[in-house]
């Protein structure tokens, strides 16, 4: 049991297991033999100095990168080199460090794209809006409205996302990921570049998502205060290697971690 904010919640079995992951880009070894697991319903943080391989790790999990060595087990199924869209179909959603929204579309349309995988009606039925397709569209619209309420972005439904301020764009990014109703949610620096208030809001949303939807969350974050507050367990990477893994308290006391962050004289 972690020392996270909602220490009372029940954490289940392993959802995602990574075993001996190694990833290299030519001579650059981004990840070296990294293993860890993520349990159901927990908030798992990945921290580390710049260039430690945090984003690479996230990219391995959702299939953007294919590791040269190691295995990824998701939902009990060992998988080999899935594509990003296949990972999405399996229930892995993510947000991006540099917001990657569909700038030409409204907030609503952006979030609706998150429902794409769940829409079943045929092309023709959708085009002419006959019975079942119409119902389906409405049903998805309702789910999206709930997420809009949840993240408190009602006022911006019809606004093209490109016009929203940064903090709100981050929120729409999260909304789109939530619209997929993912089993596993990957957040790449959800609070980067935010002011204190925005950070507090985002923290609240992340905890609420985890709490109300039971979504398992893996997040990368630089703000140590935030990480230590909201995560159940923390992995520390440095130069592509795992140097620490445990509850926030354990990690805080880990000498290797302190050295990595503060630097040591060799």
């Amino acid at each position, binding site marked *: 049991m972690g020392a996270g904010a909602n220490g009372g919640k029940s954490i289940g079995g392993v959802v995602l297991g990574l075993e001996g992951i190694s990833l290299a880009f030519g001579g650059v070894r981004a990840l070296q033999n990294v293993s860890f697991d993520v349990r159901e319903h927990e908030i798992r943080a990945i921290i580390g100095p710049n260039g430690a391989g945090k984003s690479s790790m996230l990219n391995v999990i959702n299939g*953007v990168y294919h590791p040269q060595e190691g295995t990824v087990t998701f939902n009990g199924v060992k998988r080999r080199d899935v594509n990003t869209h296949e990972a*999405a179909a399996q229930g892995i959603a993510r947000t991006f460090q540099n917001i990657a929204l*569909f*700038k*030409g*579309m409204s907030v609503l*349309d952006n979030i*609706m794209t998150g429902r794409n995988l769940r829409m079943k*009606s045929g092309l023709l039925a959708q085009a002419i809006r006959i019975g079942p397709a119409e119902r389906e569209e409405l049903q998805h619209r309702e789910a999206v409205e709930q997420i809009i309420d949840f993240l408190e972005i009602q006022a911006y439904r019809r606004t093209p996302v490109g016009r929203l301020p940064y903090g709100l764009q981050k929120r729409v990014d999260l909304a789109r990921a939530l619209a997929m109703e993912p089993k596993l949610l990957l957040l790449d620096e959800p609070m980067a570049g935010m002011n204190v208030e925005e950070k507090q809001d985002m923290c609240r949303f992340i905890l609420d998502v985890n709490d109300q939807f039971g979504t398992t969350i893996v997040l990368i974050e630089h703000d140590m205060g935030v990480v230590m507050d909201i995560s159940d367990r923390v992995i520390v990477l440095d130069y592509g290697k795992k140097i620490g893994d445990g509850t926030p308290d354990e990690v805080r006391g880990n000498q290797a971690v302190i050295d990595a962050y503060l630097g040591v004289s060799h």
Partner: protein
Amino acid sequence: MKRNRNLIILCVGLLAGLIAPLATGASDPGFYIEVLLGGLMAGVLYSLVALGFVLIFKASGVFNFAQGAMVLFAALSVARMAEVMPLWLATLLAVGIMVVFAFIVERLVLRPLVNQDPVVLLMATLGVTYFLNGFGQTVWGSDIYEINLGIAKEPVMILQSVFQGGILINKDDVAAAIAAVVLVALLALFFQKTKTGRALRAVADDHLAAQSIGIPLNRIWVIVWSVAGVVALVAGVIWGAKLGVQFSVSQVALKALPVVILGGFTSIPGAILGGLIIGVGEKMAEVFLAPIAVKAFDLAGGGIENWFAYVLALLFLLVLPEGLFGEKHIDRV
């Protein structure tokens, strides 16, 4: 606000140019309408080719230089196959060929070049253009071929009671216009109302984000190139039936460039309206403006039709760079 002002000025200018010949009495109404219709017919074809550009640009950010070559190749396929089989079967097979072509382009060009600079992709489509033009000649030959739609070519006289001398129109032109309207309506439904349409728009904005929400990029590309191929086929058949299938058909792509500048690179309605404006504009300029210019400046005359579209496009680039309906953040062109 400056954009709105420019837009209004441009629209007023275009409208003024449109009604000037009639208002000044330079033309009798019957003849004027004939010129107008002729312009609209040409415009429909420009629209169709421009539509192919816009489709691919929207979905992959690629400016597909090969659209003209695709028009020619599709038309050649239909014309040559129709020599040994019924036209409908030849058309159906040609659709199949364009879909196969889309698969090949995705596999051999787009996939290896994913996330490259738009310039790199533009160059790649330039390569595809030359390949396709040459390959088309190798497979189908380089003569002028006919497509016979089975519609009488002689013009019909209508509205003789309203206008003196009536109005001459071609039946095949009317058929072409109807075919184009139906095609455009189908595409509009497809893009606005289906999840594939939404996926296409998503892919156009951000490849990585689209993939992360479960949109298979490669399949989307095949779909959009197939659709562009079918649009090229329709344009090619209409054009070929009118003027014969020959190499010059591929040059119509160059006329589609000013059309997309006018309409905006990302807008389907823009491509349609842009095509019509250019089609009508150049006909009007040729028929009504040329004689005035010849008289005023003692010129040899003629040829306005050839450069009018580009001057108009230049004007738009200067005062309304995103076109009539384009998105404002054009950063890729």
